[in-house]
């Protein structure tokens, strides 16, 4: 049973989004995603300052059995990336909603957040897929 914190927003492609007080958003991959990938061995995060379109591949997560793209759930500019993941990719497995955050984005339009799935809708999507 994967964890889906109620206070976050979600994308269909298994990313979560946390709005921060300063107007930026924090992004990572969900518990379902990290469990499916297995032990992560390498994570590539985007450069600060990079502009991203909604749905654009912005990071790569690699485990022994799979390498996957992480997609930007909304458009914006990268304002921070989690440097700790370089030496410790396992943080994403251990604490995907906390210390396993991947990047922070200044959204191009704050309204885009509302279009994302809430916890219930994401959970329903997982259930429908048999996950």
């Amino acid at each position, binding site marked *: 049973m994967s964890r889906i914190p109620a206070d976050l927003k979600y994308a269909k492609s298994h990313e979560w989004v946390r709005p921060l007080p300063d107007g930026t958003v924090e992004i990572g991959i969900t518990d379902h995603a990290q469990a499916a990938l*297995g*032990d992560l*061995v*390498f994570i590539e995060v985007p450069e600060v300052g990079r502009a991203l379109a909604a749905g654009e591949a912005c990071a790569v997560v*690699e*485990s*022994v059995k799979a390498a996957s793209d992480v997609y930007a759930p909304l458009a914006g500019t990268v304002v921070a990336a989690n440097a700790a993941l370089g030496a410790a*990719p396992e943080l994403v497995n251990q604490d995907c909603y906390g210390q396993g955050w991947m990047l922070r984005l200044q959204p191009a339009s704050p309204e885009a957040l509302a279009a994302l799935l809430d916890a219930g809708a994401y959970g329903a999507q997982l259930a429908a897929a048999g996950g």
Partner: protein
Amino acid sequence: MDQTLERPIFEHSRPGRRAAAQSPPAAPAAAAAAREAIPDALRRRKAPLLPEVGELDAVRHFTRLSQLNFSIDTNFYPLGSCTMKYNPKACNQYAMLPEFLARHPRAPASQGQGFLECMFELQEMLKEVTGMAAVSLSPMAGAHGEFAGVAMIRAYHRARGDLARNEIIVPEAAHGTNPATATMCGCIVKEIPVDGEGDVDLAALERAVGPNTAGIMLTNPSTLGVFERKIRDVARIVHGAGGLLYYDGANLNAILGKVRPGDMGFDVIHMNLHKTFSTPHGGGGPGAGAVGVAARLEPFLPVPLVARGEGGFHWLAEAERPQSIGRLSAFMGNAGVLLRAYVYMRMLGREGMARVGEFATLNANYLQARLRAAGYELAYPTRRASHEFIVTLRKQARELDVTAMDVAKRLLDHGFHAPTTYFPLLVPECLLIEPTETENKDTLDAFVEAMTAILGEAQADAARLKGAPYTMPVRRLDDVRAAKQLELTWKPPQAATMAG
């Protein structure tokens, strides 16, 4: 077999040790002059890290390493989709006759008529057995042949002025090389589903084709181990939309001598000579991925090709084949591998070739029947096995936490190489089993016994099963650590301790 591991060769090195017989005749003055002739700025300063050992040390080291391997020569190796059949020693011996080995690739055709005759006849035999109009021998591996095939499809459409066709359709069960190849050729991949019985979903295919369809890549029998029964409908739909059919020859062993890809409607195929035509797998190569085409793709074949003319056999290269997709190898591909395939085909001959598909299929169906009787779940229980079939451990995984990986590792303890695991991705916890035609009934029966014992062990002592293998040179390896703490070259151990 002594199971203790060999230390890395560098740990056998002692400064000044050499294999003295290998030094060319001493000409110290000439050698010194040669060294002097190298400009200072270009001269190497520090010797490379190569071993310094005597000849016996080297022979012993690599011989002992070889003894740590499973191989066809030592073990039953039912790897699905790999066709681990016996590699006849005669093929090696005659491919390595001194004159063949010594011939330089830039030697003129006039000094190579014997070799070229073998290559020409190989082209002809491959055409005949696949039902294609023309063959090129130059791609150096299956994936390389795939690349050539898709590149030819693109070239064909471009030559007709049809520039929009850049989509390649691939069934979701396809091997990973198929979409990777399509991308390498600048195409977009469109995946379509297969139905519950393992056939391509025709309705989905109808929806997927259109004016952008370059072609479809298929294996038949498919990666699910079953014959694509609707192949003629698939051909009709794709051809009707203006696309071409590409045949991935990985499973040709199932139908060799029984069905020809050309007769099924395929426009271009690649063959895996290291599977179907028994050239050695060599621990990961060299392969050879000859490609065959229908007449309309003939101008695009990769060069060089061998032709026969009044003056004997000669090469056709860029000048003679202006529409070719080009040269894929600096020379002509894996010539030595091609010679081995040639000898194999000459030894089988027409009757032997027809028997390959028959007995590969007999062996697979026999194993399928016996494993099912032993309690294993088949992925496609209503279908005939082709030359391979799939068993799924999903029930054991759910109820006993015993996975396909566990069964595979335990088979090693029984002296059998595991079947292919977790491919195709469509079937959960699967084993893809391909015995090939060169195995006798006793070997197959012994394999069934081992599999039966493992199933019993799954019930009685799953924990023990999950710790397998126990009798190999190493237990299960930490591949997470291998990917996180990259140790990709030998480093001298730290002072005093042998790093583990």
